[in-house]
């Protein structure tokens, strides 16, 4: 009898696992057949690979001074021209993309963790809700990236401090989104059922509530990635990001601003790269939202 029951539950478990895998495959297929997600994914892959292999791809050292070719316009030798110290702009942009993506990923991970933590706490622990939400409202009352600028200025210019400043700025909205979707899931019947069969709080939170409120978080984090790349560029452009000799995209644009009369190429190329990467992320976010969250999709009418 026991052997029979064991094979039975084993085969049921296998059935469920197979169904799950099939659903995952269907989801991935839909995702990668979505034109904007696919376009964004290709853009992001190209730039990530370039950034990862910067040491191999970049034709020169990003901080190499070359006084024989100062402010040289784009040519076969220097595709994006050179800056006021004779540094190759293309190489600096490639390394700068690496810095931008690294900061963006760090901000996304930290914002995701903190936002989930605060959002879940606020919706799960009743007496903390008011305190957490009012504090987040206060943080969101600072317009745009102004709080990040002030925080980075106070902490001092460095990559780590830029990451801290951006995380503090983008966590409130993320936490709000997590809280909203957790509250919806919390009210559903299967959560009540889980409580009834005696599932613990940890199991209910991680296995049932968070697993079912991931979609809006994933969409939000894609946009946080995009916004934090632009915001990092703003910080280093204003001189409160990673300090100057480092090839951050904002630093290169700042160099271009000081040579605006004689060398357009220094400012133009790094900004173009930011625009394309951010466009890629926005496209991915639109695609993800279309598929994960059909209620809020921009193109739902064209279905």
């Amino acid at each position, binding site marked *: 009898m026991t052997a029979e029951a064991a094979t039975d539950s084993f085969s049921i478990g296998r059935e469920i696992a197979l169904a799950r895998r099939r659903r995952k495959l269907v989801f991935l297929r839909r995702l990668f057949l979505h034109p904007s997600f696919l376009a964004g994914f290709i853009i992001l892959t190209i730039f990530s690979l370039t950034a990862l292999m910067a040491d191999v791809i970049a034709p020169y050292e990003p901080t190499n001074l070359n006084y024989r070719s100062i402010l040289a316009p784009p040519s076969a030798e220097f595709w994006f021209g050179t800056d006021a110290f004779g540094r190759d702009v293309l190489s600096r942009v490639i390394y700068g993309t690496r810095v931008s993506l690294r900061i963006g990923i760090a901000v996304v991970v930290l914002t995701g963790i903190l936002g989930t933590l605060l959002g879940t706490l606020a919706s799960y622990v009743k007496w903390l809700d008011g305190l957490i939400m009012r504090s987040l409202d206060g943080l969101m*009352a600072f317009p745009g990236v102004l709080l990040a600028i002030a925080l980075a200025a106070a902490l001092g210019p460095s990559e780590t401090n830029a990451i801290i400043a951006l995380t503090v700025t983008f966590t409130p909205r993320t936490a709000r989104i997590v809280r909203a979707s957790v509250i919806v899931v919390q009210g559903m019947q299967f959560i009540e059922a889980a409580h009834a069969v005696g599932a613990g709080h940890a199991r209910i939170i991680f296995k049932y509530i968070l697993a079912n409120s991931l979609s809006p978080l994933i969409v939000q984090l894609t946009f946080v990635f995009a916004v934090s790349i*632009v915001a990092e*560029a703003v910080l280093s452009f*204003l001189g409160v990001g990673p300090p100057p000799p480092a090839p951050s995209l904002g630093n290169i644009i700042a160099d271009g601003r000081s040579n605006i009369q004689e060398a357009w190429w220094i400012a133009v190329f790094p900004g173009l790269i*930011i625009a394309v990467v951010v*466009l890629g992320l926005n496209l991915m976010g639109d695609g993800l939202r279309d598929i994960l969250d059909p209620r809020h999709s*921009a193109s739902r009418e064209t279905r």
Partner: protein
Amino acid sequence: MIRFLIYRLLSAIPVLFVVSLVTFLIMWLVPGDITAEIGGIDASAADLQAIRERLGLDRPLWERAINWYGDLLQGDLGYSYLLNRSVTDAVLERLPVTLSLAGISLLLATVIGMLLGILASVRHNTWLDQSAMITALVGLSIPDFWFGIVMIIFFGVWLGWLPTGGFVPLSEDPVGWARSMVLPAFTLAITQMGVIARMTRSSMLDVLSQDYIRTARAKGMPARTVIFRHGLRNAMIPIVTVVGVISGVLLSGAVVIETVFSLPGVGRLIIGAIQRRDFPIIQGGLLITACVFVFVNILVDLAYAWFDPRGRDDG
């Protein structure tokens, strides 16, 4: 409506409390001895002690916090030793430039963005719709401060039509003022109109598929009345939400754009203060800008109540 307004004003108090607390704590985050930065390299130990006492830095944190709130309630945001004047005066003097820049670009972004969105929704699924939406998506992916630099290179350096930076007060020379504002305002507007266009389009498409629109069309109502009176009016609430969000983005965008175009607003004051490590000015600029944004948000909520009478009694 009055009750709603009072409720909304009262609910701004906890927000302002957190805002001022965060602004106060930012100073405390600064690593190292802040007095050495304020006093400069050749300040003697006695000078530093004097600065420390005048700023109250020798007191415990809670006492400084009480002083900060006491001064704040009297409109006193501290004193800038580097500018040798009160922070409140310095920031308020610069505020009009920032507000007019953000205001003009908000107006431009809203008008152009809504027109694009309405056009796209009325000509749904045509090349016009698609190109409007591609323009909108590209626009919102462009970093505004960089776009400002490109505009300067194109219109200022290459064509020489407009100044590459600098500011002329409106009272001195209106034409010069307009010439100094047109590039920064358009720069900010172009990057944000995409957001409004996308929201207008999707909100309009929602409304235009409703039964009452079909009824209005069926009874022979002119297309313009259907679109504007019945369509747009009911599609306004999501649009107002985005306009509220964007006003914050534009306010902080104005702060950055001022640096690009050398406009004498709060932004350049703050950025200059960051370079000089003039922390009272950074705090004051941050706090006053946040207060402006809180006030704008109250206006946005009032606009909701105007467009959606259902929300009015909930307060």
